[in-house]
């Protein structure tokens, strides 16, 4: 699992990577766009005017902003109470029920909208947790694993444990943990964090192994910095890039994982709006030809994942230039 973005497009001034067809959202940030205006030299690039640059770079972030807004205020926009029966059962989409109702008469539109907060919130916190934990784990193992004595031993042991966690498919581990500790947002977030942290730890560790032998780390030692200080100041910032690029993938994985658990009935308790549980309930509808209860939450999920992927690749492009 690596980054989704075609990040290998390090901005080469003369040949702006024609082989990577940019997706519509990222096209605005493509170096090709401004090229004819600028003098054909590399020096001219940074002087591109601020007012032509900003909207282009901000454009891919508009959907992201909308997503965040939905996650925050979504539950207040619902026309019906998402957790109460609000109409006939299995009614097709209409003016009253935009996305129809499901088998128990819950309004699908309100549920889908309200679930933005649940799913996006869980995924976001889980990803942040996994990244923070993974970075810590990667730093600890990477910096210490080849040391002699108890420090190295502990680091190698930690690395092994992370491997073990990775050996079990995340969804099954999540299923069992949720079963053991009860389904709540906290359990879900912690479980996803534990499942995903080893992925980030591995990425960070690989970088740490490269960075720790760079001369500037020794130079920082010679400058009197303590190991902790120099790790935070030099090793961490220089090792976290692949993990940052992986954030959007991780986000997609945790959105899907949360929904998968909900789908299998190990998610949050029933009336709580959650896409996976909605799709699971909608599956029985789909089998008898009622398409709407499963389709709308699925679309919401896929669009959310796509928005995050597009926004992160746009942000990463900006950072590489």
């Amino acid at each position, binding site marked *: 699992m690596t980054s989704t973005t075609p990040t290998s497009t390090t901005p080469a001034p003369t040949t702006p990577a024609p082989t990577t067809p940019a997706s519509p959202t990222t096209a605005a940030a493509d170096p090709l766009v401004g090229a004819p205006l600028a003098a054909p030299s590399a020096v001219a690039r940074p002087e591109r005017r601020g007012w032509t640059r900003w909207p282009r770079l901000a454009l891919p972030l508009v959907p992201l902003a909308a997503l965040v807004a939905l996650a925050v205020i979504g539950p207040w926009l619902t026309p019906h109470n998402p957790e109460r029966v609000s109409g006939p059962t299995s009614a097709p989409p209409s003016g009253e029920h935009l996305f129809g109702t499901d088998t128990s008469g819950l309004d699908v539109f309100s549920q889908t909208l309200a679930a933005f907060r649940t799913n996006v919130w869980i995924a976001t916190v889980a990803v942040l947790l996994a990244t923070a934990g993974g970075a810590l784990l990667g730093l600890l193992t990477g910096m210490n694993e080849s040391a002699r004595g108890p420090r190295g031993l502990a680091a190698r042991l930690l690395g092994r444990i992370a491997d073990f966690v990775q050996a079990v498919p995340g969804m099954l581990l999540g299923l069992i943990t949720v079963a053991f500790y009860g389904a709540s947002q906290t359990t879900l977030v912690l479980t996803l964090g534990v499942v995903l942290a080893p992925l980030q730890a591995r990425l960070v560790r690989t970088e740490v192994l490269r960075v720790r032998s*760079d*001369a500037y780390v*020794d130079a920082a*030692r*010679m*400058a*009197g910095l303590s190991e902790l200080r120099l790790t935070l100041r030099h090793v961490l910032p220089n090792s976290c890039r692949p993990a940052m690029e992986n954030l959007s993938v991780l986000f997609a994985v945790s959105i899907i994982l949360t929904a998968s658990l909900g789908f299998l009935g190990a998610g949050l308790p029933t009336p709580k709006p959650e896409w996976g549980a909605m799709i699971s309930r909608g599956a029985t509808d789909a089998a008898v030809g009622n398409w709407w209860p499963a389709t709308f939450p699925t679309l919401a999920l896929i669009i959310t994942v796509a928005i995050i992927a597009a926004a992160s690749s746009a942000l990463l492009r900006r950072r590489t230039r």
Partner: protein
Amino acid sequence: MDRFGQLALDAVSKSFGPTHRRHLAVDGVTLEVTPGARIGIVGESGSGKSTLARMMVGLDAPSAGSISFNGVSLRSLLRLRASRLELRREVQFVAQDTTSSFDPLRTLRDSIRVPAQRLAGLDRRAADERVDATAVMLGVSPELTDRHPGEVSGGQRQRLAIARALVVEPNLLVCDEVVSALDVSVQGSILNLLKRYCVDRDAALVFVSHGLPATAFVSDRLLVMRGGQVVEHGPTSTVLHSPTHPYTRDLLAAFHGPRSDTGAGVDAPVALPLPRSQPAPA
């Protein structure tokens, strides 16, 4: 802790690799460095010079043998924060690698200021002034230090790496291949500068290089290493004129023979490779 008085290596060895395939990189080196001494270490690539230099400054721990600073073992000095900082103030190191010598995410000034503040105890303004002065001393314009390491040339970066070591005005400077990556004219000016710094302050220098002429120019004692061992050790002129080990003779022959007047005036122009080829004494 007092000012640098003596750095003593006693039968120091370093091995790498897993137990069943140990590999001795440094094999029983004994050496003493005192104030004002300028010691050159030469040897082919892979002979253990870098490993030895790193152990001298406490970046690596020896597998066997001991290293002491003013009679106290490096290991115990490094353990406590206060004595570690004292040690760093007295002993500085410039590493071999020029491409990764500075953190690519920080400006050069950011990196050079750290030792000035932490070790020399200067406040931020004074540290900045010290950085400027040291950069000028090494022939780099102070404005360049506000750039990132990728935005200056390799030679400039190397000079600034030396500047970073010199801002704390150490009394022992260990340099690992500092001029090997530079072109000849720059090499000359840096060698002169290092030598002048040591003579002016009565500071000690350990100069590691695979290039014999440069090493001979700055040093008054010379160590020849091969396969981790010191095969020849003595005053530079003695080693150059009457080498005892066949390997040293080969090494000298590779540089068109020895030179008689090493360690001339501090400002002597460096001509590289050494002039006047003269048949090696048999």
